[in-house]
Structure formats: structure tokens, C-alpha cells
């Protein structure tokens, strides 16, 4: 038996559950259910609520623990510092393992409900954050939810949070190519302005990670999601004695080779840096640190800014 039939028309397409290839597929009943085909009413609500959010950037990786949240944090901190006249937001879409409240140093804060919806938590004057972490009573509380409930939460985050005017909303995602990812793309894709939603991919250099990341890149391609580029994280470790070690060796050429092979832009590499991991755990502002990691970060951020069209206001 195959995971999906050879001529699978694709879940969510016109012929899902109806084509001849669907006969005998264990998921035929699911695909042919007419109720799943209706245009989600949430999409209009999301569009209305996010009309003043100019651009959205998804931080993706098929693999977990590669630094999606760290890169999201670094990028948001850097952008909000560099462009004090612009407004930035971060939405933590990782429902089961939210990390942003800790990384951005706003753990334990509360979300307030106002007339126009939930107010996100302010990290800086021009940077705000929404995460399910703010809605949990304790750090030990687990969100034991199947897909549909997670999707409902994501929809609420997009349609019932008072995001206000944002130049860029960064969305930190969980690993995989499943419910969260499909829902986000479904709600945020705007066919009239396809470039308002882009993806940034994060990976580590070893093949075990690249294997999952290639899947994620193919997910983006299938969903027609423009890929801004790939950041390689944890690429090498420099000991205090000066010796550099590859902790996650790039036996297959690392992110650069993968980018060439899959025809996506390679943005650069961030080294493994105990100073950064520590600052992340403590929620400190990393833009205050001056070392090789933050230098690498600056050059990656500049490349990203170049493609995001954040206009200078001066």
C-alpha cells in the first residue's frame, strides 16, 4: 500500500476524493467530504483584521530545534532597533511548544482583552508579541489538542488580536508540514498581493536536518509560497582556545549546497554561540552583544530587509 495513491489529485483540490486514483485510498472519505471544501469564513475575518499589516514573514523549518524561534527573535529585535519608526509584530504559531515569551523576555506577562480584541504584549515601543504562552496558567500546562482545535486558535490569533498598524508580522512556526502550516497559508495568502506573504527557512548543517528542510521547501513550492531564503544556524563552534569544530557536520555540503540544488537563495550562516543561547534563555536583547554571531546576523538581516521593501522614512 502507498502513502498516497500515485495520481492523488491533492487534498483540497476540486477532484479530491473523486478521481479514480482515490478509489481504495484510506482517506477517500475525508477528502470527498463536501464540508471540508467550503471557503472558510475565517478567511474574510482574518483579512479584515489584518488589513493594516503590510507584510507577513513565516519562519519555517521541517526540523525542530534548529533555531526558528531564535532567528525570529534575533530578526525582530534587530529590525525594531534599526527602524524605530516602523512597527513590528511577532506571532508564535507553535501551540504545543511556545518559546517566544521566554526568548523575547516577556514571560509571565498577560494579554489584555479590549473592545477591539486581544492586545498583544509589548516587547519594545515598536515590537509586540502574541503567543499561547501568555494564556497558560503555568509553564507546566500542556496544550493537548488535535489539529482542528489548534487551527481554531491560530484563526483567533489572526482575526481577534488587535495587531493595529504593522509594517511586518513575523510568524514563528512549529516543525513539520501539517495543520499549523496549512492553516497559516490558507488564512494569510492573498492572491491579489502574493508577495505580502513570504517564507524564511532555517536549518542546521547536518543531513538529518536538511532532509526535513528539503521537504519544507517543497511544501512552500507546492503552496506557491515565495521563499526569501535559507539561514544556516549552528554552523560551527569556536572554542575559547580558537579551535573551530563542526558539531553538526555538513557532510552533504550544508545549507549552501542544498540551496544551489533546490534553487533557493542562501542568506548566510550563524555560528553556535554559548553567549547567544544564554541570552535567549534569559530573554535578553541580543542586539546589545557585539561578537561574530551578531555580525553574521547583521549581514543576514540586511539581505532580508533588501527583499522586504521596508522603506526608509528619513
Amino acid at each position: 500500500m502507498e502513502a498516497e495513491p500515485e495520481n492523488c489529485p491533492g487534498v483540497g483540490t476540486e477532484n479530491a476524493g473523486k478521481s479514480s486514483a482515490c478509489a481504495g485510498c484510506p482517506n477517500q472519505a475525508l477528502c470527498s467530504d463536501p464540508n471540508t471544501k467550503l471557503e472558510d469564513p475565517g478567511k474574510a475575518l482574518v483579512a479584515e483584521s489584518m488589513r493594516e499589516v503590510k507584510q507577513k514573514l513565516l519562519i519555517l523549518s521541517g526540523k525542530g530545534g534548529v533555531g526558528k524561534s531564535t532567528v525570529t527573535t534575533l530578526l525582530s529585535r534587530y529590525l525594531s532597533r534599526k527602524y524605530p519608526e516602523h512597527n513590528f509584530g511577532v506571532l508564535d504559531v507553535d501551540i504545543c511548544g511556545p518559546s517566544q515569551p521566554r526568548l523575547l523576555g516577556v514571560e509571565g506577562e498577560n494579554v489584555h482583552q479590549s473592545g477591539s480584541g486581544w492586545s498583544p504584549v509589548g516587547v519594545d515601543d515598536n515590537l509586540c508579541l502574541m503567543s499561547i504562552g501568555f494564556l497558560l496558567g503555568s509553564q507546566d500546562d500542556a496544550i493537548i489538542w488535535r489539529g482542528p482545535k489548534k487551527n481554531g486558535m491560530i484563526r483567533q490569533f489572526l482575526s481577534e488580536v488587535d495587531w493595529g498598524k504593522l509594517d511586518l508580522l513575523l510568524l514563528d512556526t512549529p516543525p513539520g508540514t501539517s495543520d499549523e502550516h496549512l492553516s497559516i497559508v490558507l488564512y494569510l495568502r492573498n492572491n491579489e498581493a502574493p508577495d505580502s506573504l513570504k517564507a524564511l527557512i532555517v536549518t542546521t548543517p547536518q543531513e538529518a536536518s536538511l532532509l526535513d528542510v528539503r521537504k519544507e521547501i517543497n511544501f512552500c513550492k507546492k503552496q506557491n509560497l515565495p521563499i526569501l531564503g535559507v539561514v544556516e544556524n549552528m554552523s560551527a563552534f569556536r572554542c575559547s582556545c580558537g579551535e573551530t569544530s563542526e558539531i553538526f557536520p555538513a557532510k552533504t555540503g550544508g545549507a549552501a549546497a542544498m540551496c544551489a540544488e533546490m534553487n533557493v537563495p542562501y542568506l548566510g550562516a550563524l555560528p553556535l554561540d554559548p553567549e547567544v543561547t544564554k541570552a535567549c534563555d534569559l530573554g535578553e536583547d541580543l542586539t546589545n552583544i557585539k561578537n561574530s554571531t551578531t555580525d553574521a546576523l547583521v549581514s543576514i538581516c540586511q539581505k532580508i530587509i533588501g527583499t522586504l521593501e521596508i522603506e526608509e522614512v528619513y
Partner: protein
Amino acid sequence: MLEKVKHVILILSGKGGVGKSTVSTQLALALRESGLKVGLLDIDLCGPSVPFLLGLEQSDVYQCDEGWVPIYTGEDKTLAVMSIGFLLKNRNDPVIWRGPKKTMMIRQFLTDVKWDELDYLIIDTPPGTSDEHITVMECMRDVKCDGAIMVTTPQGVALDDVRKELTFCRKTGVKVLGIVENMSGFVCPKCSNCTNIFSSDGGVELAKRAGVPHLGTLPIDPRINVLVGTTRSVLTELPDSNTAKIFKSIAEQITNHNSESISTD
């Protein structure tokens, strides 16, 4: 379901990239070294790593009257492996499935695979506390499951998620066999100085606070990478390494589990 399997062990972690699959494969291989028949089931459907880690990516699963036949890694058939990776035509193909489809696939892996007689079945999971985990826990009600091994790295941001996974185990009634702390400290090959890249002792402290056993602490050891893509155990390849000693000890603690000899220091 799994009638001929004596013990089932889940490898969990709320966090991704902490080494669940590495611990799953090396634990399975360590148990095999002690003469046991072992099965390894990978239920990470969107990011299966087990076929790559064991060098089995070219293998194809075929069907017999009793269901899917798992991949056996040797003539002696002491290690049986099943993963969605074996069902994909191209290793870069994404599996873009929502929850219900993932649930059906996992049920099939547990009910329609001809697992035969196994001493241990190790189940490697994706990060999180969602569809895959709820499904496997539901299935474990009908099967005697020894419990779960929690893998973590020492830094706070990983521990946050592992604490959630511990709550998940408590709520679903699965026993936590213990916590393995991975990627704890890196010894520079030149100056032998140990740097705690991802902090240290986080797993030990969490075990203490949660009142569950600490099964061992694994260092960052780039030598382990030579084992990637093979079915060789760290026990036979790098017998003097700390990693080998710790895997040996974890395997012993697991197999002695029935006689309740895991210490809770």
C-alpha cells in the same frame, strides 16, 4: 494490536531537535547488543529521520497476507524498522497532512504491521503534544506500555517544552521511565576544555523536580556522526566513549525496569 510484543517504550520530548531519533536508534541498537529482538517504529510523519540514521533509505516496504512487513536490518532479523520514510517515492517529498490523516497512518503502523515476536518496541515520536501523541497514547491503553523516556537538552527553552510533555504523560497515564539529558557539554578536541554550549544539568534538575529518574547525560560527541547511516551500535564502535557507557547504562536500566531497580537519585 502488538500481541507478540513484550515491552513498548515511547521516546518523547516536547522539543524538536534534541535527539529523540538518535536516542531511539542507539537505544534500539544497544538493546539488540544485549541479545534482544527489537522493533523501532518512527511516527514522525512530517520529518521521519530513522531511515536516514540507520542507512535504510533505499528500502521498500512490501505487503504480505498479514499486513506490511517491516524492514529487517540483518539476516538474523533482530531489528525490525517501520517509518513513513519507506513509503515515500522521493526522499524530499513533503507529507502535507492534517491531523486525521496522520492519526489513520499511525493506527495502521500499530495494527497493520506484522511486528512478530519482539522483546522491545521503541516508538520514536515528533515534537509536541498533538495528534500523533494523542493517537499513540490512545492505542497504548490496549497495549501494555512500559512507559516513556523523555529526551531533552539542558537549556531552559527546551526544558519549558519538556515540562509540558511531562504534564501530558501524567494526564494520559503513561509512566515516565526517566529523563535523558542530551548535548550536554562539548569537549574541544584541541584544548580538552568543556564548553556547555546549551548550558548543563538542566535535565538532571528537571528530573529531580518532577520526581522521575535521571537515566543519563550524553555529551556532544562529533565522533557519533560516523554511526549515522549505519546499523552499528555505539557500544561496539566506540566502546570507550562516554556515550557508549551511558547507552549501556540506559539499556540496563530499561531492561531491569521490571524488577524495579531504577534508582531515583
